[in-house]
């Protein structure tokens, strides 16, 4: 949706929602406002998609070119091109051509590792899955791991050692390094500084310690833009030393998240979200749920799961935390103003669950909030039960901001003679008030190890390309300290070096990365001669057993720091890492760029996110570029208003806007790092906002593929696309969400029912545990080689994702406790599929296992099927989106899936390649496919296991049992499509005390 929104009458929304034919669930404010432009856009959806985009080739040119290529293609197609088969000279063991192998490894991000299993086809890594044996993964992954396969093959990664920008060699670099070290050796390394990213590699830690022994006057600095300084400082306030919290959501009945997106962002979230959701799966006979309270400024996936949510500026979280703490008996009572009642109710609920609750705070929040949280957890008796503390997993657990400040000061004072920056892009990401990039010029010998030739490389004498984690040996620790060996799957594609190899060069160590890591662990394994077997076992399992860090007993002091004087009043700015491209390191990753961000569903851009009320106070509309100023620093960003955002608060995602990135990332978004300072922190209060008069088009998919529109009974009533209610209603009558007449099966038919004799594939999606994170989408993209289309194409609704997550609101947008629901929508594989009869060439048909199949080579691109699909899950290749040219991407693609060309329709296949593979394996053994033997890519990656896939004919299968649940419903079943993909309704577990005050009694009924 890109229509400019001028006059939003917020008061009218409430009236509209209470009126007759009111939509119970809605997706965008324009819809509530009955904006005529939206009507137009939705009605014209198909036409808009097929319109020429104005850039590149228009329709006329396209036809001309097509005419020419048909004429010439006729000549060329007589003989197929000759193909060669290249066998090995000497075949490696275990490798069967045509069958993939899986290797365990681990991916580290911000110093925390997550275990992965990497699929390798003939030596080429093609897909990343989670490692079920790894405590930080349990078989699922985050979106960064899914997308990292694209980064591996990125042709724009740096590919050569450079000296002052010119091509050089590794040998030349090493000799220059040695020469510099020679001059420093006399003074014990005075002036030698190593700046790493946050990392937990025990090997790198030991290498650094050796270096510091050899050069006692040298120093080790650490900086990662998504820093956890305030978490560390908070624990220092509470316990007197930096500690890390490990949480056990399995034992928590009540959870309070203070500006913490622990279900979709913070380290270890893949594990935590699984544990948390295991307490929310309402099944027949197990009607229990935990209760989640969330206080946050910007709605996050965690916020969408909240049973009670307050939208408050991030700067006021501390007051709320103090108020809750006061009620619990920690510190003095504080008045939380308008939120007192909320704070009291939450505190009472927490007190009622001593030792069975968890309170947590976000990384953005100041140390004091973290100290308060530790004190509350101690007072509630949670410490040692639902939370425990370990030493930080980081190899260098320092206050990174201070570390950078010291480094910048020393650089400016000329005290740094040699600076080695190992990873990261600090010239772009360092706190703005340090002016790090400029300070670098004071250092006479500067080295940068980086994946791209970026801002920092350009300011360094030497640039060394860094290896991808699938290219080099290393090790890393999970969120609970468990060690994994990072095992490479392929030789460096672009001549990279790893951190270990650079550190070895510093140490005059000539061993390879493999030897360094292996020798380090050989010393520690204490298995003597049997080390080979032990090592192989570790590599196979992907974890070193019993290597989790032991809990430390840390009595919290209980004292909480006095409240600091409140900063300037007025509008605040909250800086947070972008949900997709993170701190900017994934800016050149088009999968992440195009993955719709949770809640806003924006792609390819960041924006100044604010509530509709704040936007109307500021008199700005979506796309208006505003200039935000605080303390003399300014940043410009386009406005995007988000219902349920806190008023007087603007959220800015950093990571965008790097000038030196590849073709993909160039020109996307706005750089907001200049606004991020050490002094100001991530919550900047008292900013002034000015309109610039410029406008930017932002590509959001929020109103794409609108389901209910054409079916609207005059008012756009949601026909049971979302069904939600409360746990209490469920306990009274588990079938309370059932709507008579809307069963999945039951429509009249002239034809006898098809007997599905072998398998009947089906999927059940539990909307009650879906956070809307988007990991299913990117996992599907990686598995099925789905192309990206770019911002211009997203703007006209041509994104290609086979599974999308629609975000619905429920209730009055002015209500702070507005309901938010996430509904992943893949192909429904309808038994009466409306797409099938309209295809003139039978390119889409039905299999005897109930799969709605899509045969690409038959498709002639009439798009009748997409036109007739009520779920809007079909995607058309309007242009040649798949990159057939770039060599490296050819190696990346899943060889089991056809790459689609221009003019071909595609859609979710239930991962038919996996079904076929496992059917064949089962047939060879003369058995049926066992439940859980395989699953689809989306279901496999989902951290919450919201998506389950299997055989409905097997009554013991997970999916068959879920389909029999009373909460199960089908979408748009009144069309008699008989969908194979069904949903479980979403339940909230409101606190009766709070619900009594707020709830309009009728809002839990599904729309009839």
């Amino acid at each position, binding site marked *: 949706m890109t229509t400019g929104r001028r006059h939003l009458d917020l008061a009218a929304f409430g009236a509209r929602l209470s009126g007759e034919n009111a939509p119970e669930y809605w997706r965008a404010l324009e819809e509530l406002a009955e904006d005529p432009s939206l009507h137009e856009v939705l009605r014209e959806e198909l036409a808009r998609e097929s319109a020429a985009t104005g850039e590149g080739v228009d329709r006329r040119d396209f036809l001309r070119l097509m005419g020419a290529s048909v004429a010439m293609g006729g000549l060329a197609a007589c003989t197929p091109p000759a193909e060669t*088969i290249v066998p090995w000279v000497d075949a490696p063991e275990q490798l069967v*051509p*045509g069958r993939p192998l899986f290797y365990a490894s681990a991916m580290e991000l911000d110093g925390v590792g997550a275990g992965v299993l990497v699929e390798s086809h003939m030596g080429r890594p093609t897909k990343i899955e989670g490692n079920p044996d790894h405590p930080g993964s349990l078989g699922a992954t985050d979106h960064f791991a899914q997308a990292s396969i694209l980064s591996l093959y990125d042709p724009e990664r740096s590919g050569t050692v450079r000296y002052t920008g010119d091509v050089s060699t590794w040998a030349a670099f090493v000799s220059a390094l040695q020469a510099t070290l020679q001059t420093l050796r006399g003074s014990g390394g005075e002036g030698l500084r190593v700046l790493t990213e946050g990392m937990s590699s025990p090997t790198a830690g030991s290498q650094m310690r050796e270096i510091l022994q050899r050069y006692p006057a040298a120093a080790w600095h650490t900086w990662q833009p998504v820093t956890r300084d305030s978490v560390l400082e908070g624990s220092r306030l509470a316990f007197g030393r930096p500690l890390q919290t490990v949480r056990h959501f399995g034992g928590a009945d009540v959870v309070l998240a203070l500006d913490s997106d622990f279900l979709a962002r913070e380290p270890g979230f893949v594990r935590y979200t699984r544990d948390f959701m295991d307490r929310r799966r309402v099944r027949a006979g197990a009607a229990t749920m935990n209760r989640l309270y969330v206080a946050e400024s910007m709605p996050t996936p965690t916020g969408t799961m909240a049973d009670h949510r307050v939208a408050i500026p991030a700067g006021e979280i501390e007051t709320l935390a103090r108020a809750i703490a006061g009620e619990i008996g920690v510190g003095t009572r504080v008045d939380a103003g308008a939120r007192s009642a909320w704070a009291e109710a939450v505190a009472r609920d927490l007190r009622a669950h001593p030792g069975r609750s968890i309170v947590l705070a976000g990384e953005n929040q100041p140390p004091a909030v973290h100290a308060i949280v530790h004190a509350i957890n101690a007072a509630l008796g949670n410490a040692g039960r639902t939370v425990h503390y370990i030493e930080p997993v980081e190899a260098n657990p320092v206050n990174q901001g201070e570390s950078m400040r010291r480094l910048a000061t020393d650089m400016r004072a000329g005290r740094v003679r040699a600076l080695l920056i190992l990873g990261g892009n600090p010239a772009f990401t360092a706190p703005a008030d340090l002016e790090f990039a400029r300070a670098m010029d004071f250092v006479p010998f500067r080295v940068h190890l980086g994946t791209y030739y970026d801002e920092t490389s350009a300011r360094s004498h030497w640039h060394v390309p860094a290896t991808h984690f699938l290219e080099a040996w290393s090790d890393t620790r999970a969120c609970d300290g468990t060690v994994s060996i990072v095992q490479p799957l392929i030789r460096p594609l672009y001549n990279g070096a790893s951190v270990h190899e650079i550190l070895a060069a510093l140490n005059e160590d000539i061993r390879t990365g493999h030897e360094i890591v292996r020798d380090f662990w050989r010393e520690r394994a204490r298995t003597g001669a049997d080390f080979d077997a032990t090592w192989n076992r570790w590599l196979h399992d992907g974890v070193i057993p019993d290597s989790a860090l032991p809990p430390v007993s840390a009595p919290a002091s209980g004292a909480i720091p006095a409240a600091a004087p409140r900063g300037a009043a007025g509008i605040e700015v909250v800086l947070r890492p972008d949900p997709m491209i993170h701190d900017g390191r994934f800016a050149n990753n088009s999968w992440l760029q195009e993955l719709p961000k949770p809640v806003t569903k924006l792609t390819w851009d960041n924006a100044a996110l604010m509530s509709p009320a704040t936007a109307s106070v500021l008199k700005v509309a979506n796309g208006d570029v505003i200039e935000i100023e605080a303390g003399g620093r300014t940043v410009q960003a386009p406005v995007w208003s988000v219902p349920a955002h806190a008023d007087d608060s603007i959220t800015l995602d950093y990571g965008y806007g790097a000038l030196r990135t590849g073709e993909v990332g160039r020109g996307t978004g706005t750089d907001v790092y200049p606004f991020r300072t050490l002094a100001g922190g991530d919550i900047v209060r008292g900013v002034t906002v000015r309109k610039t008069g410029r406008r930017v088009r932002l590509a959001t998919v929020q109103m794409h593929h609108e389901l209910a529109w054409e079916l609207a009974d005059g008012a756009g009533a949601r026909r049971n696309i979302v069904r939600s209610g409360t746990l209490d209603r469920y306990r009274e009558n588990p079938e309370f969400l059932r709507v008579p007449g809307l069963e999945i099966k039951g429509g009249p038919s002239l034809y006898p029912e098809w007997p599905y004799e072998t398998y009947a594939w089906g999927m059940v999606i539990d909307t009650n545990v879906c956070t809307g994170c988007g990991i299913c989408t990117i996992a599907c993209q990686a598995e099925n080689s789905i192309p990206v289309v770019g911002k211009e194409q997203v703007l006209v609704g041509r994104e290609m994702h086979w599974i999308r997550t629609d975000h619905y609101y429920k209730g009055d947008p002015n209500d702070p406790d507005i309901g938010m629901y996430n509904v992943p929508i893949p192909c429904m594989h309808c038994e009466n599929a409306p797409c099938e009869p309209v295809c003139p060439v039978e390119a889409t048909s039905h299999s005897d296992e109930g799969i709605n*199949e899509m*045969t690409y080579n038959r498709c002639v691109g009439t798009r009748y099927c997409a036109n007739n699909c009520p779920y809007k899950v079909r995607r058309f290749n309007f242009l040649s989106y798949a990159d057939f040219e770039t060599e490296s991407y050819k190696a990346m693609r899943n060889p089991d899936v056809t790459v689609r060309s221009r003019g071909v329709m595609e859609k979710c*296949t239930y991962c038919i390649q996996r079904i076929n593979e496992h059917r*064949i394996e089962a*047939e060879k053994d003369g058995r049926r496919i066992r439940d859980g033997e395989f699953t689809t890519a989306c279901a496999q990656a989902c951290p919450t296991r919201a998506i389950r896939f299997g055989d409905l004919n097997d009554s013991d299968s997970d999916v068959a049992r879920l389909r029999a649940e009373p909460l199960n419903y089908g979408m748009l079943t009144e069309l008699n499509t008989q969908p194979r993909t069904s949903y479980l309704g979403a339940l909230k577990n409101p606190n009766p005390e709070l619900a009594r005050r707020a709830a309009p009694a009728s809002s839990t009924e599904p729309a009839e």
Partner: protein
Amino acid sequence: MQVFHRSANTLSRFSIFGAVFLVAFALWFVYQLNRSPFATGQRDVVTQPVPFSHEHHVSGLGIDCRYCHTSVETSSFAGIPPTATCMNCHKQIWTGAAMLEPVRASLREGEPIRWQRVHRLPEFVHFNHGIHIQKGIGCVSCHGRVDQMPLVWQEKPLSMSWCLECHRAPEEFVRPRDKVFDMTWEPEDQDEIGPRLVRDYGIRSKTNCSICHY
């Protein structure tokens, strides 16, 4: 006044009907051409870097298919032997043969031999050798008498209609599992063993699009 001669009637009739026949013939011709060995490449002998004779190695020496095509029972791809497999024998026999120089060079220099593909399916077709072997489809059914080919050619058209001949009526082609690799086996009574093997082997040869196209 008569502008056209009387014979113009005949001419016009002829050309109108002639055009219809011409178009029909053209369509028929293209259809037939497309299915002819000219287009499918049947029986085209493909020149290989080493003139490896299946006739000699299979009928002459009696080497089993699976000695070289090792993954044919387990994988989609039957496998082309690594140079090392050739050299298992040829380090002892024919060690100096000029014909085998590319093989020795491959081992010496660590450079693989680049064989020309003979049986090529389009990229949107997924064929799995393993399951066909397992269900009792003989090599010879699709590849012809490889044991009589000095240089391998493609015997069958490999067109979709040809695939479907068997997928629609597997009982006409299935053979006992122990005869799968037998080049010379002929059924005594296919009508008798066919349906029985289909039952015994649990053959549900499918004709859904997504069995091969995905």
